[in-house]
């Protein structure tokens, strides 16, 4: 029997008016990778906040034992002293400081208040070596990729002599190869250094890949802990525990309604980078989407997918060098976002908080924003009509909120995403450019979003579906374009594409790049 490193016993945490955690029990053994899964709002983050001392001892009931000792954390400092380090979903690195400075932020290598830069950079290199990163420690963090930043975060934790590493959605903004890199690192740290970790993730394949045991939370309570070590648990089994019912299918079916008419066609699109104006981000791309069709664009992060979509959407990104957009067979002049919206094209951004929603505004205001002219006459807003419209989308998209006057910042991720979708459905588009429409939402909400997309195309609209999750692309799309380094390098029909074929396509292309 392995030694227990962490034991949380009957943890109950109440916020005014609500029980966020209800008698949660969890045991983590020394030297294991323990996964915690659950839908948004199941209480994962609250549980980790109890553990790390964000919610101090006494504000919750139940006991936390670390290494056999009862913990009475008053703050994060206390838990860090014991070697509990939490890496949050949004990386906490300072972009304009160097790798070395970031790695020892709050843990500076100093002698009587004077920083020893030599030691700082030397140690930074040591830790970078452990996580398998070859970078100059003087490089500014803003200049390295997100995948590498995630590794820096882990190295930073190692520098604090971590015993229990907690990763909250560590791969949510990483592409598949970077994600695998992070997971492999966790496995290696476990094997070589005996570091215990807790990983919180929505990505079930990753959890099956690396976790020894899996604890499932639902509605603030522990449902069960599954052993993933002896025999791999099927994903459907985990999902069942999370949502409390069998999800027989991950993707809802839709009646095939593809028409012959082309809704949108893009010919010879070339776009240059916003800042580095000599760098081609989109390179001579041509593609088309029919009415009633979902076309997927798959590619690794940095392949130029969002940039392509944005520049179709009224040149909202970079500078367009060439290319024409044809809608219903006619060429369009789309020089600005309002032009694109008027042409009934919608772009649903991948970053709903950063460039999607107005968080400080209500649901009503967010939904009607792109086409205020639908609810206004001569510049004057008909507030009643506006409300009624918003109510309509609340019902049809099942946005969970007591009222449409609720500020969007008070909604959960899945509901925020639905507000964003609602906004662009409201704009009456014929063509929807959906950029990672299910990023950061739980399994249940994902399914609902797929259903919404299906309803739209069944009504004759066309959708371009951009995603980093290949399973999602394969499950949802009628046709798939594969993008790499700004170019379209492959086109497959839904029936003929598999994970292997698509990945191979990218690998072959990248190889050619190196050979040339």
């Amino acid at each position, binding site marked *: 029997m392995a030694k227990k490193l962490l034991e949380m016993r009957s943890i109950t945490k109440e*916020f*005014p*008016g*609500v*029980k*966020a955690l209800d008698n949660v029990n969890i045991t983590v053994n020394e030297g294991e990778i323990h996964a915690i899964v659950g839908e*948004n*709002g*199941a*209480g*994962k*983050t*609250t549980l980790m906040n109890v553990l790390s001392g*964000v919610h101090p001892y006494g504000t919750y009931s139940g006991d936390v034992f670390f290494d056999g000792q009862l913990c009475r954390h008053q703050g994060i400092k206390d838990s860090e002293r014991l070697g509990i380090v939490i890496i949050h979903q949004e990386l906490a690195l300072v972009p304009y400081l160097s790798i070395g400075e970031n790695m020892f932020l709050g843990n500076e290598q100093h002698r009587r208040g004077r920083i020893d830069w030599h030691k700082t950079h030397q140690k930074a290199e040591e830790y970078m070596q452990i996580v398998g990163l070859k970078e100059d420690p003087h490089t500014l963090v803003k200049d390295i990729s997100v995948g590498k930043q995630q590794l820096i975060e882990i190295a930073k934790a190692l520098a604090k002599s971590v015993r229990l590493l907690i990763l909250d959605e560590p791969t949510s903004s990483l592409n598949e190869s970077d994600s695998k890199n992070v997971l492999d690192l966790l496995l290696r740290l476990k094997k070589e250094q005996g570091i215990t970790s807790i990983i919180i993730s929505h990505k079930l394949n990753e959890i099956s890949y690396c976790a020894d045991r899996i604890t499932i939370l639902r*509605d*603030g309570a522990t449902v069960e802990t599954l052993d993933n070590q002896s025999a791999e648990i099927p994903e459907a089994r985990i999902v069942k525990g999370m949502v409390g019912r069998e999800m027989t299918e991950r993707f809802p079916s839709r009646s095939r309604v593809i028409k012959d008419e082309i809704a949108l066609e893009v010919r010879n699109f070339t776009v240059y980078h916003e800042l580095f104006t000599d760098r081609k981000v989109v390179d001579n791309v041509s593609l088309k989407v029919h009415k009633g069709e979902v076309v997927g664009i798959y590619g690794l992060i940095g392949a130029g997918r969002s940039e392509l979509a944005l520049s179709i*959407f009224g040149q*909202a990104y970079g500078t367009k060098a060439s290319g024409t957009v044809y809608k219903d067979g006619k060429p369009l002049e789309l020089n600005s*976002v*309002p032009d*694109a*919206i008027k042409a009934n094209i919608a772009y649903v*951004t991948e970053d709903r908080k*950063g*460039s*999607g*929603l*107005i*968080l*400080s*505004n*209500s649901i009503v*205001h967010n939904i009607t*924003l*792109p086409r*205020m*002219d639908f609810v*206004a006459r001569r*510049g*004057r*807003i008909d*507030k*009643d009509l506006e*409300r009624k419209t918003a*109510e309509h989308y609340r019902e049809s998209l099942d946005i*969970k*909120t*007591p*009222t*449409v*006057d*609720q*500020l969007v*910042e*008070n*909604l*959960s*991720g899945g*509901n925020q995403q639905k507000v964003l979708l609602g*906004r662009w459905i409201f704009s009456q588009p014929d063509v929807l450019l959906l950029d990672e429409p299910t990023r950061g939402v739980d399994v249940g909400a994902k399914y609902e979003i797929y259903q919404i997309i299906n309803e739209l195309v069944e009504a004759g609209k066309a959708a371009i579906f951009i995603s980093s999750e290949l399973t999602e692309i394969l499950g949802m799309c009628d046709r798939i374009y594969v993008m790499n380094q700004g170019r379209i390098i492959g086109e497959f029909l839904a029936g003929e594409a598999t994970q292997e074929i698509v990945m191979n396509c990218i690998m072959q292309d990248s190889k050619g790049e190196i050979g040339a």
Partner: protein
Amino acid sequence: MNSMRTTFRNNLKQYMMLVALVALVIAFQVLTKGVLLKPMNVSNLIFQNAYVVILAVGMLLCILTGGNIDLSVGSVVALVGACAGTFIITWGWNPHLSILICLGIGLLIGVWQGFWIAYVRIPAFIVTLSGMLVFRGLTLIVLSGLTLAPFPPAYLAYSTGYVPDLFPALQLFGVRNTTSLLVGVLIAIIFCVTQVMGYLGRKNKGYAVESIWALIVKMAVISPAVVWLFYILASYRGIPMVLIIVGIVLLAYSYFTSHTVMGRHLYALGGNEKAARLSGVKTKRLLFLAYVNMAFLAAVAGIVFAARLNSASPQAGQSFELDAIGACFLGGASAYGGVGTVGGTLIGALFMGVLNNGMSIMGISSNVQQVVKGLVLLVAVAADAISKNKLPFNIPRFGKRDAAEQQSVEL
């Protein structure tokens, strides 16, 4: 009901400030032994604060665009006053024409600053800091460092005069200016009628309406308050002309921010610029217009203020920008933009105004007054920040799951 609770929660700070304002008025009324609300003093309060309210409304729009402020308004007030003085007093131009030209100068200043801020993307703080120096300097050049006085009556009438009494013999309820009282009653009636019409209209069309009691309470509080204010004014010399200017500004901008597409876009721009742009909001143009508008209102305030001083002084308008900014933040505007209302700003400006006036009546030295004002601003904004973190208002009460979700989002 749920909807009302959310509306209430979203506007919590404003309600708290309104309650605080009423408490402050009562406190000073007691402390000054009733001088504060004497008809003459109420008239005074209006004259003293008119230009602050006008500036604060313009400042609100700038702050809404993303927490941008305008440091140059005090200097613009001085420059416009100096121009008015030069045109009218030195050169003897027609006062009405001169006022129009002065407003035009305000617009030009706005175009200048707005261009740098919106199209060259220089931080507003820097552009308007530069403006603060440039326009103050220009004021000194225009006036050669001297004060020009006095203005002719035709100019003063616009802002320091009173609305004439049409029925001087009547003296209804013993007031000196019956017309003013009647205007007050008329405004109260118009208010009630529009409220009821709006309510019935919405009900007929099948839209959601507030409870009938909320409507009655609203009318029962606001109408008497309006009549009472005009009664006080009528007991002195009547409605100050400048109150009409301020009233028009408040109504126009309140309507603009809450009922027009462009106003809505302003909130979107301040809430999230990128998102606003990707939703088809013309962000640059909007930012440009916010600053053009600010300078225009600063010109209006400059004309009003010069009339109040009855002179064009090179030192006019010192630190007005700070009064305006303070009023906005007191009134619930967010320092990050996207949050704030004209009503809240008015409350904030009145709060500062009553504080100033009350302390002056009590004979508290102006040095101490500054300390008190500074602390009040800090406390008001701090109270808001603290209440946001501590009050259970932020936790919705509709089922366990959503609330827990909210926690996970917030933390």
